[in-house]
Every structure is written in C-alpha cells, then in structure tokens.
C-alpha cells in the first residue's frame, strides 16, 4: 500500500502509470459517448415541451458538470501539492486547468445555443447558472494567466495552488450570490427545479454521456499529464535515457 504511494511520487513511474491508464479510460469513454450520442439523438423521444431542442443536454449537462469537477480537481491537487509538497500533484493541476476551461466554454456555448430557441436570445443574464459558469471561466483564465506569467515552475505551482483554493471558497459564494441576484430580477425561474421526472429513454443516454465525458476527461488528463511531466523533467536523466532507448519513450 505505502509502496504504491511512494511510487506515485516518482515522475518516471507516474509517467508510465498515466500511459497504462490511458486505454482503460479512453475505451470506456469512446463506447459510452458513442452509445449516449446515438441513443440521445435517435432513440430518446422528443420532449413534449422543448421538442428536439432538449437533445443538447447530452453535451451541455456533462460539460457543465465537468467544468466544476475539473476545478475541484485542480484545487484538490493544488492542496495536496501544498500540504505534502508533492510536485507531481501540481503537474496534475496544471494539466487539468485548460481541460476545465474547455469544458466550461463548451457548457457556455451549448447553453447559449439551447437558449436561442428556448428564451429567444443567445444570452440570458437572468439565468443564474449561465452567469456562474461565465465567472468560472474567468477564474480558469486567471489561473492560467498566473501560471504563464511566472517563469519559475515551482513558484508558479504554489502560487496557482493558492489561487485555486481561494477560488474554490469563492465559487460557493458566487453560486449563492448569483442565485439571489437572479431571484431579484425575474418572477419565475426559467427552468423548473427538479421538474417532472425524466423518462428512462431520455435519462440513460444522459447518464452514459456524463460517465463517458468523465472518462474522456480522465483520458485527456492522463495524456496531458504525460506531456506535462515530460516537459518538467526534460533535463533529467531518465527522460534522456528513455528518449534515446530503442522504443523512444513509447
């Protein structure tokens, strides 16, 4: 057990572990997303109110969920890096940030496309979730901007970890303050909370998509961690030996 954790802290081991995990994450991601896309677009019956427009939730909901999960992931790895001084944890955070930002952007774009037929406008300030998501995107931008402006990697890691942790506390405040704010400016909520239960043929593709997106995030993250570790360790001996070996690091 402890050996496993000790090995986890060693970059070459971590590099290989990420490579081993890759297919185990990528294949389920592919299968689940393929099933979810087909079932969501063709098998699920149209919504009685929204017609076919509701089908965008199969991309929107998983993206929105991952946008928040990636931020938590980033903050937790930052905390681990700060508390136990694990450099690799910071590398994980650095690899997760652009992915999180991409999912946030995707959630915003799909939300906006969905809003066009539903609300008759591309952007509705009155919707608390859309606004919170936008602020989340700005938080990601701040994190990445801070990282790119500090040349010293070790320093950038710690500074970004502090920022991510402050951001997590703030995300909660953002959520409640935006809810309060939008409750002031509109009579009824745009989408019922809870609402009527979903039919099974709508729900299962959604669950598959959420799970599939999570696996996809894992697979992309494993890929990004590999490049991140390689870049950070570029001056070490194991990287040189691996590159010069007959397999060339594959």
């Amino acid at each position, binding site marked *: 057990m402890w050996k496993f954790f000790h090995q986890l802290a060693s970059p070459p081991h971590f590099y290989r572990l990420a490579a081993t995990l890759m297919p185990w994450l990528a294949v389920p991601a592919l299968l689940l997303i393929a099933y979810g896309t087909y079932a969501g677009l063709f098998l699920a019956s149209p919504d009685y109110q929204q017609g076919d427009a509701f089908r965008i939730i199969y991309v929107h909901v998983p993206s929105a969920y991952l946008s928040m999960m990636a931020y938590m992931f980033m903050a937790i790895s930052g905390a681990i890096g700060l508390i136990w001084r694990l450099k690799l944890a910071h590398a994980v955070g650095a690899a997760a940030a652009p992915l999180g930002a991409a999912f946030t952007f995707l959630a915003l774009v799909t939300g906006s496309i969905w809003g066009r037929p539903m609300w008759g406008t591309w952007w509705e300030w009155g919707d608390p979730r859309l606004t919170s998501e936008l602020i989340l995107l700005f938080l990601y931008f*701040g994190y990445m901007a*801070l990282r790119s*402006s500090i040349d010293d990697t070790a320093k950038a890691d710690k500074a970004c970890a*502090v920022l991510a942790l*402050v951001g997590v506390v703030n995300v909660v405040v*953002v959520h409640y*303050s935006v809810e*309060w*704010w939008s409750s002031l400016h509109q009579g009824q909520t745009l989408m019922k909370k809870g609402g009527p239960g979903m039919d099974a043929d709508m729900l299962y593709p959604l669950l598959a998509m959420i799970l599939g997106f999570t696996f996809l995030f894992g697979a992309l993250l494993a890929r990004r961690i590999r490049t991140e570790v390689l870049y950070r360790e570029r001056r070490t001996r194991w990287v040189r030996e691996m590159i010069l070996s007959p397999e060339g690091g594959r």
Partner: protein
Amino acid sequence: MAVPSPEQPRILVGLVAMVRRDLLLAWKRPGDVLNPLFFFAMVCTLFPLAVGPSAEQLTVSGPGVLWVAALLSTLLSLNSLFMSDHEDGSLDQLLVSPQPLPVLALSKTLAHWLTSGLPLVLISPLLAMTYRMSTDIVGVLMLTLLLGTVCLSLLGSIGAALTVGLHRGTALLSLLILPLAMPVLLLGANTVSLAAGGEPYATGIWALAGYAVAALSLAPYATAAALRISNE
C-alpha cells in the same frame, strides 16, 4: 498556554507600527491616495456623458455605476500594495521578522483600506447626489461600500501578494481579482438598488457583512502564504 516572554513579539504593537508606517508613507506621497479617488470620480462622470443625463436613467443605473467605479478604483490602488516594499527590500525584512506574517499582511491591508476604501466611502455621497440619490439611499450606499471595500481590500491583498514582483502585474492582478470580486459587486450594487426601489434590502447587508468577516479571518493567511511563495 505559555506566558509571553519579553522576547516574543507583541502582536498589537507590530500591527499598530505597521499601519502607522504605511499611513506615514501614504502621507508623504499623497498622489498614491488621491489618484484612485480622482479615477473613481472620473469613471462616475463618464457614465452620464455616455448614456445621457436623463434623471430616470441615472437613478436606475446609479448604484451599479458607483459600485463598478469603486471596484475599479480599488483595483487601481491594489497594484502598489506590496510593490514599493518589494522594490526597496523591506518586504524581505517583514518575511524574516518575528511577527506572524498574517498579522503583518492584515496590517498592510488595513492601511490600504484606510487610504483607499475609507476615502472612497467618504466621497461617495458627493457623487451619489449627482445621480439623484435620496439621503437615506446614500446612507445604504455608504454602508455597502464600507463593508464592500473591506472585502475588496482583503481579496485584493491576496492577488497583490501573488503578483508582487511580476512584470505585467497590473493586467494580471485585474484578471485574478475581478472574478473573485464579482459576488461583492453583485451584493453591494443590488442591495442599493433594492433600497432605492423601496424593497427590503437587509439580506444584502448581512451577506456583505458575513463576507467581510469571513475575508477578515481567512484572507490574511492566504496573503501571507502568497507572500512567502512570491519571495522565495
């Protein structure tokens, strides 16, 4: 708990000395205090020029405009919070001093608030009058600004500590702080709008006060951690 021995630092003495020093520095360089205030006044002037002087429009947009201007002007003054200390080396002295760093960070932030937030609160009625706000609404505005600038100074001190010594500091600082400051702006401006509309607004005041208390107890630690990271 051990009885404090003479060698141990006396926290309150350090805090007061630090605030006095920063206030004295601000007194010697009044431009640093006045420029953000002029900026605040000018941003408040821009809006009527841009959207027109009609009274209804000004009453509606007044709270928001004043709050956005206050946020931007605080941001402007934050950049110099640790800069001169970093340049002349006194920040290194603070880091090795026996005083606990969070307390020193808090006292620097307090001095910053006394020279930026407080004057801003004091001149806000003047600008609020030009936006046709009634006297009781001005009271609410001042209260929200009083609580809000405390939050902004504390949040901003984290950002200023993270970016101290970096080139491109100003733009980066805004990028870091603005998303964090959005809830404060949202609570502050909407509380004033509610008050202006004759609706109950106590929730916003309490929320801002809660935010200020939480920031007061947590932010100095984050600032201290950030200062250590930036100066290692």
